[in-house]
């Protein structure tokens, strides 16, 4: 073997473990998801029944529970896109004014994102507790006594919003860090020039900050959408889809159908859900590209 060929073989050997692991545990499952979605299969029987697009048809036209779970995730996502990202932007703007204690604020705001979803969910479940939770104790203390014994997570009206609030509490620090980093890359000379031209802070925000930040807004929006639509740990630890199935999201439904042994059906759900997520990301990127022109 000549030297170059030997080099090539060694390099390939270096790559081999990663290629093997990735192919078996990441690539193959993706292909398998699409394949299984055309079959009715309980995971045990030796033969799988080919049903074509039947399961897709059933999910799209005859499964209101799945669409309800999608609507729930969309509700959490909408709240996150507006309130969570609005808060993140406000805080980033405040901190970027070169104030004292910038590092301390940054450290504290990024604390919730590094905690585990299960830990955060269980702490807040305790805070929300109808009888012994500190939230109701606090609300009663400030005079809102009709919240005594109000079980936030067990009431159909409030449960999903209560989970969404925790989701936003856990997530805003992430957007904050990215937005702040984005703001700090805008050249200061732009603002100084605008000031010389007599622009007030609102005009500076509108004509300098917003246009320079559009790519960053897009990144934050996409991360928020993907993270919120695929919410699972928090929900699982706080409501497990309850009360009476009212807080189910797509991932909990997929998990549920898998648990019932409907492997083909649950993978068809995954494919539909995955395609919708991909479509949303593409639209986002396209829209921001047009706005940038």
């Amino acid at each position, binding site marked *: 073997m000549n030297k170059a060929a030997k080099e090539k073989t060694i390099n390939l050997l270096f790559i081999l473990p990663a290629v093997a692991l*990735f192919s078996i545990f990441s690539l*193959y499952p*993706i292909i398998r998801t699409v394949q299984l979605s055309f079959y009715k299969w309980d995971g045990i029987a030796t033969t799988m029944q080919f049903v074509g697009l039947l399961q897709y048809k059933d999910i799209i036209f005859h499964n209101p529970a799945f669409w309800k779970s999608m609507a729930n995730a969309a509700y959490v996502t909408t709240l996150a896109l507006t309130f969570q990202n609005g808060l993140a932007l406000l805080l980033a703007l405040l901190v970027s004014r070169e104030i004292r204690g910038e590092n301390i604020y940054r450290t504290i705001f990024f604390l919730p994102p590094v*905690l585990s*979803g299960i830990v955060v969910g269980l702490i807040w479940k305790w805070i929300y507790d109808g009888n012994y939770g500190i939230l109701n104790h606090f609300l009663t203390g400030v005079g809102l006594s009709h919240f005594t014994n109000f079980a936030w997570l067990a009431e159909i009206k409030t449960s999903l919003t209560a989970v969404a609030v925790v989701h936003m509490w856990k997530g805003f620090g992430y957007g904050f860090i990215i937005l702040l980093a984005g703001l700090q890359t805008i050249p200061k000379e732009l603002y100084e020039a605008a000031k010389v031209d007599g622009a007030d802070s609102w005009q500076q925000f509108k004509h300098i900050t917003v246009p320079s930040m559009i790519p*960053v807004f897009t990144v934050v929006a996409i991360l928020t959408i993907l993270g919120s639509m695929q919410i699972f740990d928090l929900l699982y630890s706080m409501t497990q889809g309850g009360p009476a199935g009212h807080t189910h999201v797509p991932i909990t439904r997929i998990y549920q159908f*898998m648990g019932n042994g409907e492997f083909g059906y649950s993978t068809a759900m995954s494919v539909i859900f995955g395609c919708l997520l*991909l479509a949303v990301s593409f639209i986002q990127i396209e829209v921001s590209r047009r706005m940038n022109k």
Partner: protein
Amino acid sequence: MNDARLKNNLVNILTHVILIVIALSCVFPVFWMFSSSLKTQEEIFTKMNLLPEHWNWANYAIAWMKADFGKYFLNSLIYTFAGVFGVVFISSLAAYGFARLEMWGKNIFFYLLISTLLIPIPGVFVPLYLLLKKMGLLDTRTGLILCYISGGLAFGIFLLRSFFEDLPKEIEEAARIDGASKFGVYWRIALPLARPALATLVIFNCLSIWNEFLLALVILQDTAKMPIQRGLMVFQGTHITDYPLLMAGLTIATIPVLIVYLLMQKHIIKGIASGALKG
């Protein structure tokens, strides 16, 4: 002039008031968890004091020994160490290979790898479950660890490849002439130079594997093998009203995260910001 200064001061005060209120809301739930973990059952159901009357450190001994949190904690340590070691070793080896390999088509696989970072793949746990079942790895530590390693490869290779490509090849060539093997060059020269990137990789994988729940839920049934995130849900399901012990368990699960975060926060925050802005 005085008016402008006054206005400026007011804006500054208002800024800090908003920031402090939000900061307190971030810290309070964590504080409340810790404070509740030191109270007695009775105190928790009858009083709302911010700090416990007596600091019942014994709760932690009970949580660690009798409520099995010690066992779950050690399992989490095993998964995190094995997972992080696997990700770092296998992805740095592959990234080095990619950076030095000259071959038609090598980028196809690379882009396939990277695309899984960008394309959302919800519900991939279903085929993973079936795969592990077929391989006889369901409900095993090996099965879970292999999933964690494979899940971290794309990010690891992406992060390290550009780093290795930027390393000057002259040092390596000199070492080869001196008789070092290819693996020797990777191990003794390339890897130590990549230390900053490796640190990022270690930190992010530590946090994500330690906090992971869904795969542990799908793959493991045996409580003896469960990591702490699953153990918390098991405890919560069976001892629904034992809040002090649950809070002690939550604190035990959080302390390693807090330590890593507080020691490495600059690294973490920089990594998040630059990663998102580049992508």
